[in-house]
């Protein structure tokens, strides 16, 4: 469903993303790992059409994001890093706005989508609260609700469990797992247990390049008995 081919993004003298290629199929939960600054977020921003790649392409359902970004954006749900939202709006108003932009214009359709998203992410107790008054965990869930609202086939989640407490983390993970059956999911994280917990594929990038693309099991098999963070450290040793 997602196909990335030779993506390149350069900031000044630095190549943030240097020829990244991979595929994600329906039913996959791809864990996107790498040290901070390795190019995870930049790659995601190019897939979602926020940044224009300097070279290479990303296609979603066969649509090239550099050719028809709006069509790709219609198919995607995206949770940007740190879940930005309009602070002065209430949860309900904010999700209502997203629903309208996503094409649910009639009052009933809009309400149905908003209620569904609020139900899935357990936001009912704060639905009438303004976003600026919410705790980080709730804010993160608002971002998640916004990404799920139109039930997209492809989800791109930039650090979806960042800032959540262990219970909330578990909840978000089981939610992602439950939904992934008929979706393609990319999630970035630097929590290594997360990979074992939910992902069925792992990509590790270091200095803008893919250094590993395999299942969690074969990642473990690289160094039997070693902890995941040791393997991670070896693979990303050049990126300090």
């Amino acid at each position, binding site marked *: 469903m997602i196909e990335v081919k030779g993506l390149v993004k350069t900031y000044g003298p630095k190549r943030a993303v240097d020829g990244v290629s991979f595929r994600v199929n329906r039913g996959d939960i791809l864990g996107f790992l790498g040290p901070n600054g390795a190019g995870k977020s930049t790659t995601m*921003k190019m897939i*979602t*059409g*926020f940044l224009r790649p300097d070279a290479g392409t990303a296609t979603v359902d066969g649509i090239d994001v550099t050719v028809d970004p*709006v*069509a790709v*954006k*219609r198919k*995607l749900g*995206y949770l*940007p890093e*740190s879940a*930005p*939202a*309009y*602070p*002065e*709006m209430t949860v309900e*108003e904010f999700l209502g*706005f*997203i629903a*309208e*932009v*996503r*094409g649910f214009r009639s009052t009933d359709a809009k309400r149905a989508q908003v209620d569904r998203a609020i139900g899935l992410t357990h936001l009912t107790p704060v639905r009438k609260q*303004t976003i600026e008054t919410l705790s980080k965990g709730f804010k993160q869930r608002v971002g998640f609700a*916004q990404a799920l609202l139109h039930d997209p086939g492809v989800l791109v989640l930039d650090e979806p469990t960042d800032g959540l407490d262990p219970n909330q983390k578990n909840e978000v993970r089981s939610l992602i797992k439950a939904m992934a059956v008929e979706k393609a999911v990319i999630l970035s994280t630097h929590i290594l247990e997360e990979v074992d917990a939910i992902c069925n594929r792992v990509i590790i990038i270091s200095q803008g390049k893919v250094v590993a693309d395999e299942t969690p099991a074969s990642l473990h098999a690289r160094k039997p008995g070693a902890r995941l963070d040791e393997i991670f450290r070896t693979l990303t040793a050049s990126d300090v």
Partner: protein
Amino acid sequence: MTQISPVFKREFLGYFRSPVAYVFLVVFSVASIGLAFFVGGFFKANQATMQGYFTFYPWLFLFLIPAAGMRLWSEEKRTGTVELLFTLPITTLEAVLGKFLAAWAFLTLAILLSLPLAGTVAYLGSPDWGVIASTYLGGILMAGAYLGVCSLTSALTKNQVISFVISVVACLALLFLGWSVFSEVLGSIFPVWLVDLLSNFSFITHFDAFTKGIIDPKDVVFFLSLIGFTLFLNVVALER
């Protein structure tokens, strides 16, 4: 283009979700009417016109419209919501138009809040309604032109203070070109045709005709093309 309306709605209501709208409307009304009463000699002139009120508009707009417009894009950039907005299925043009039109509608509301003043004039005398109507039209068009400049400068930076200062300077330049005092200075240096040409780019030159009851297509075209040009640059600045 149907995507403009949710953006417009969110932006317009956004003013009223924070104290911005109330503070702005009160300050605008107090300042504009205060200038008319105490400096413009609104009653002292003993004439049934709005001249004493509208004559300060170009100067008042110089500070108040950058204050309303500085946050348009810089706020989105600072809070990161720009990433959310541009990963929704919206083109840059639709987003720019939606936000601009919302801010323009808000400024129009601020201007129309002075209508009771027109009622007072009508109660005390018999004003020429045609002149009053054309002046309101001119004021609203001029507000749009100021706002176009501010929206553009706001897209260039995530810092609202920088956005405000650049807006004021840019508007000041467009204002000064037609200010009689400044024109005389220019006239002593440059040939008359050049001074005339420069003053054609000024807000004052084009607004003056409206205050005399003349709706000249070339003045309307001036304001509309300035809006179009600044919004075009606005799109370019955001897509860069």
